[in-house]
């Protein structure tokens, strides 16, 4: 049988996906089925790791809950914060839009950990905020460092560009003429936003939501650096399993469950929202 040019040209990508995407997933899944605290991958087959995680006495569900809760809260806050900026970038800033966009990209050139430690220096007792307030007003800064709220702040800060640019792209896809037409037909601002702008910008909005949610659910540095481990997120639990506990099978089982959970949630959202309709392909 001869392969057509399409499949033939897809072979390199196929191989890359097999090696870079499927192989690690197979390895992690195989490890999750190995005897606890062993390296018997592909040699042992047990559900013991999953039983340990699902044991009612195990509090690891708290870590899952914190990760999902923080990721969801990050998405909601980012949507509210990034929408006006994206609107500005797409409609108002004109020739300054490029420069403003660049300012939001700039922090990405600096390692996330360095930026988070920078915020620690800003908020710590005797740090930038506390010191400035003491000098100028004679009052100390708020005691916010090493709290769950600070973790959320860190996540919103780190993932802002990942929400902002898909939103900007989405809003840029809304034809100006349609908005003008709606206004000419007597639509109110709210109606234009709800019935014209929002549906047409939905692909960008949705991509921003999904991107930040998935990144947020896998975040760990914010909880460790800014949160002072006041909360243990699921990725931190996975890290402990692979390091101090040296229980690779348990860590793998946690990773598989996290992947399944996020994958299911994402697919559910995509299914409910009917991507084809949103993308206008009916």
């Amino acid at each position, binding site marked *: 049988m001869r392969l057509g040019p399409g499949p033939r040209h897809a072979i390199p990508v196929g191989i890359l996906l097999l090696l870079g995407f499927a192989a690690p997933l197979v390895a992690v899944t195989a490890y999750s089925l190995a005897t606890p605290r062993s390296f018997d991958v592909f040699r042992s087959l047990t559900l013991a790791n999953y039983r340990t995680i699902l044991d009612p006495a195990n509090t690891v569900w708290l870590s899952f809950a914190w990760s999902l809760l923080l990721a969801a809260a990050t998405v909601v806050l980012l949507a509210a914060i990034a929408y006006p900026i994206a609107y500005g970038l797409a409609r108002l800033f004109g020739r300054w839009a490029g420069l403003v966009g660049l300012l939001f990209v700039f922090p990405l050139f600096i390692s996330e950990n360095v930026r988070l430690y920078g915020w620690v*220096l800003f908020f710590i007792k005797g740090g930038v905020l506390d010191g400035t307030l003491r000098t100028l007003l004679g009052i100390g800064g708020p005691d916010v460092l090493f709290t769950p709220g600070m973790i959320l702040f860190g996540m919103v800060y780190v993932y802002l560009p990942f929400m902002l640019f898909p939103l900007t792209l989405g809003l840029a896809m809304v034809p100006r003429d349609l908005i003008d037409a709606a206004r000419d037909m007597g639509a109110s601002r709210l109606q234009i936003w709800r019935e014209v702008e929002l549906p047409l910008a939905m692909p960008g909005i949705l991509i921003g939501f999904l991107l930040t949610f998935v990144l947020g659910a896998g975040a760990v540095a914010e909880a460790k650096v800014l949160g002072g481990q006041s909360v243990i997120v699921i990725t931190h639990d996975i890290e402990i399993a692979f390091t101090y506990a040296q229980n690779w099978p348990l860590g793998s089982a946690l990773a598989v469950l996290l992947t399944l959970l996020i994958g299911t949630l994402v697919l559910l959202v995509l299914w409910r929202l009917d991507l084809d309709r949103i993308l206008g392909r009916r």
Partner: protein
Amino acid sequence: MHRLPRRTLLQTVAAAAASGLGALPFASRRALAQRANELNILCWEGYNSAQVLDPFRQAKGATVRAESLTNDPTMINRLRAGETNVWDLINVNNPWAREVMYPEGLITPLPRAEFEPFFELMLPEFHPPYKWAMSADGNDLLGIVQRFGPYSFVVNTDAVSRATAEDVGWDLFNDPANAGKYGILESDDWNVFNIFVVAGIDPFREHSADELAKFEETARRVFGGAKLVGDIATMNQALISGEIGFHMTGGTYSASPARADGNPNIRGITPLRGPMDGKGGIAWIEITSTVANPQLSPLAQEFLKYVQDPEVAHVVAFAEGTFNPVTQMGDPRCFALFTAEELDAIQWDSLEEEMARCVEYDIVPDYDQALDLMTAAKRARG
């Protein structure tokens, strides 16, 4: 233009593919180069610094690769998982060579005649035969010793005086009035030791169900009262800023960067008494061993000799990251290289008495169970 012969290229690709993804860079290099010119070191931070490695690289014309990790179990399990054919040297804390790696065939002994003379030059307590460098039967030399130090907890002496901290000891963490005033370093293996000690239990033996229940209660209380859990930089920053007054786990290894940076009020403390045969402190001593690599680099033993040189030992003591005493300070030629500021950074003034108040790091028989209890306690903070 120099062209890579097709056959060599194919062989390299085949070798890389056969050895699996994880070992790819090593496998391809192995197929191309002689092991005589390469050395791979798995170590705690410090030995991976350019200050230590560059002179050796230049002198030997060798490719030296060092990977630093910050906990022993991970390094040992890398060997268990099959990386004995990757690494030449492994640098971990004292009990692992003698009690785990040598019995499991993960490391090989050193020629005693060649290496024991180095021990003669070390500080007196490390003179040969030094227990942790020897096999359990006392016949084989399993590695060399260099960095060491007491490691219990650290205070800002402006918040808690050295005398009070040494006298009250681990009960600082039991005092409800101290809730919110201390931090915990994220070294979970050491935290297991410390939670046992705070609970008044010797960590380095089998524990009864009652003792583990006491451990769990203590872990929940101590982690519940912690202002933060974080890394060394965060702990030092929080100590200096006054965010916290003291933290566990810590000692010379963690406090020395802050002291060297002009903060002599940050001080590692070894309690006067405790539940480990009356002793209150725990000390670590690094052992560096040659890995049971079927193609062990001949440079492995060369490197172990190289770091014994007084000047190199001084560089190792003050390599980037953390500053520590080294056993080679027993050699007057090495000791003379340390300035007064450097000696102060590593708390040389009290080092001997602190080491005398310490038991040496050992393996906790029920570590897995204790760690699970402690992780659950950390989760309960949220």
